[in-house]
């Protein structure tokens, strides 16, 4: 099994192997039971099984209900689970799983140095950035940015925006599209132009009635010409560590060089009556590693670069912990682990429900054997061997669970397609508020659960079938 370790579907593969094993045992049992029979006898057995199940439609339906519910719920729940897990994975991939995000972190007030300066200086420096740029080709781009909480004003309209000074490559990292105009360009930065790109919501607030392109936004006393507007962007969830949830739609982007030229090196923050000033050269630096996230080798490379970044920072900053390294890949792997755990849990619940279904089948089969004792006696008297009786009841059980499993698959797939559609319709109708329910059918699960229900039929049919075959023909014939 160690071969499978690390494979994303390792658990499912193991389950599939188990089910396969169960089916093999069943096949051997059937083969034994049919001994010298051949396909004709099997076909006949199956048609007889259908006939006697059809004779007791309601009972057959009730006895396979457990299997139907088990199979359909496995498929549906797995699909919904897979769908929402996929959402989380996509969320992380949006942040760029090959990125390494380095942030400036305000260190805790250090009373020992008693440096009660009005201006706190901390964080990433130009030196750090230059060191990062020596990593070479393995890093595709290194994008620094500075963040200023600032009021942006157009005539009497005021928005509390987040101004982000950055370079044009920022757009490549986040793969976002403009709704109009362009993103920042190389020349903007070089010439320290007073241009800005508005996030969707900022544009909407500042220019509710007109096209913002070419208009002027005032920030900290400077006029900035709008050169582009971004499409609405999905925020990132704030899971774990130092990475908070982020909302990008109110951001205003200006060239990095411009921030230094116009706003200076000091960021002033007014917070509840007190004024704070911080000197931060770069709020954040994002490095993109040249790697494929879906390969083991690529992941190793991202982690190696992450380690190198930390080493640089440790060397440069010494004991001062005014930085933090966030590797989205870690979160991706965490999410993948969570997904695997979730799948395991679902599979366990599913096995329990199918087990319960199997016990239901066994229960009915035992009752059927008692009820059909006389039939068994007649068949024995007319020349049926014990094997024939085993085969008859085993086939009946397997036919039941197979039909049940098929019904379950149909119902489960139906639920996977119908429930999200109905849910979306209800959301659109304003019945509820919430997020859409994503669903993604996990194809191996469909086959595994079907195989599982067939295996359940074999497993739980064997005992009643064996009991039936051991009946004494004379006693059985006398039975009413």
């Amino acid at each position: 099994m160690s071969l499978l370790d690390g494979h994303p579907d390792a658990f499912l593969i193991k389950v599939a192997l188990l089910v396969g094993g169960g089916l093999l045992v069943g096949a051997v049992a059937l083969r034994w039971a049919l001994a010298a029979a051949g396909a004709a006898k099997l076909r006949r057995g199956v048609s007889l099984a259908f006939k006697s199940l059809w004779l007791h439609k309601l009972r057959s339906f009730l006895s396979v209900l457990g299997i139907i519910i088990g199979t359909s719920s496995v498929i549906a729940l797995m699909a919904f689970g897979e769908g929402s897990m996929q959402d989380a994975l996509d969320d992380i991939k949006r942040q760029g799983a090959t990125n390494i995000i380095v942030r400036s972190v305000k260190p805790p007030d250090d009373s020992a140095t008693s440096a009660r300066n009005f201006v706190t200086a901390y964080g990433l420096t130009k030196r750090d950035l230059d060191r990062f740029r020596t990593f070479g080709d393995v890093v595709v781009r290194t994008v620094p940015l500075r963040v200023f909480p600032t009021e942006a004003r157009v005539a009497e309209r005021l928005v509390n925006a987040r101004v982000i000074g950055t370079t044009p490559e920022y757009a490549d990292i986040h793969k976002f599209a403009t709704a109009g105009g362009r993103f920042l360009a190389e020349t903007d930065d070089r010439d320290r132009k007073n241009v800005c790109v508005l996030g969707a919501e900022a544009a909407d607030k500042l220019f509710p009635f007109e096209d913002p392109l070419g208009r002027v936004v005032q920030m900290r006393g400077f006029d900035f010409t709008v050169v582009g507007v971004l499409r609405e962007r999905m925020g990132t969830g704030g899971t774990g560590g130092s990475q908070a949830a982020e909302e990008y739609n109110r951001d205003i982007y200006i060239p990095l060089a411009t921030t230094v030229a116009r706003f200076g090196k000091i960021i002033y923050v007014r917070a509840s009556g007190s004024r704070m000033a911080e000197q931060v050269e770069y709020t954040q630096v994002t490095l993109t590693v040249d790697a494929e996230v879906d390969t083991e080798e690529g992941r190793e490379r991202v982690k190696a670069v992450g380690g190198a970044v930390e080493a640089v920072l440790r060397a440069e900053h010494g004991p001062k912990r005014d930085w933090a390294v966030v590797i989205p890949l870690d979160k991706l792997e965490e999410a993948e682990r969570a997904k695997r755990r979730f799948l395991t849990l679902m599979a366990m619940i599913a096995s329990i429900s199918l087990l319960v279904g199997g016990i239901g089948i066994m229960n009915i089969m035992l009752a059927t054997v008692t009820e059909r004792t006389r039939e068994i006696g007649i068949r024995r008297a007319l020349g049926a061997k014990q094997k024939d009786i085993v085969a008859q009841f085993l086939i009946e059980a397997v036919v039941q669970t197979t039909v049940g499993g098929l019904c379950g698959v149909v119902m489960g797939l139906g639920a996977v397609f119908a429930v999200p559609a109905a849910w979306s319709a209800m959301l659109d109708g304003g019945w509820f508020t919430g997020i859409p329910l994503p669903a993604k059918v996990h194809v191996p699960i469909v086959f595994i659960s079907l195989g599982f229900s067939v295996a359940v039929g074999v497993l739980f049919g064997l005992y009643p079938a064996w009991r039936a075959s051991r009946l004494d023909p004379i006693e059985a014939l006398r039975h009413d």
Partner: protein
Amino acid sequence: MPPIVRVENLVKNYYMGTQTVHVLKGLNLAFDEGDFVALMGPSGSGKSTLLNVLGCLDKPTGGSYYLGEMNVARMTDDQLSEVRSTYLGFIFQSYNLLPQYTVVENVELPLLYQGIALDERTKRRCVDLAEMVGLGDRLDHRPLQLSGGQQQRVAIARSLVNDPHLILGDEPTGNLDTKTSVEIMQMLRTLNRSGKTIIMVTHENDIAAWARRVVRLRDGRVESDTRNDARSVVEMGL
């Protein structure tokens, strides 16, 4: 010609807890091919047990049972099943048809366990047999749609489908009225005259009178073994 059925010193005991019930106490009997035998005797005499042993449904405790050349007494369960399927036909008091099957399917049933392919030819044979017993117009009826006499005729057709060496009847007319009983017995006699060996259990003298030979049992032993002469049959006006 050697007898088709021969039992020697046949013993059958049942064990009930610590008690042993001796049902058959050393029977010696032989039946010729083409015979028509009635086994009679009060309840507890062992006649049903003897029929079960002859029918390979039960194994004797001791002694031997030769069916033709085979010593059936020493056979395994599977072998006994094969003997039943190949050489024996059964007719029961309560018909014992499968309610979910049609007339033709019931007749076909023993062939299912012979390991031969069921095809148009075997189906034809079943239909022929059903027609022979007078149910040609009810081939697709189910047992519950038939009268007792008709059901027993289906059972007779079923007992013939594997062309058995020996037909065993367990009170075949026990559930039928006199008129229908006569019809059934006529049918059995016809079969016997065409060469089939028949052994049946009955406790009615009227029915036993149809047989060529009457064996009476009492307490697990043969009490009497007589041949019906032709006259008694004539006396019955048949």
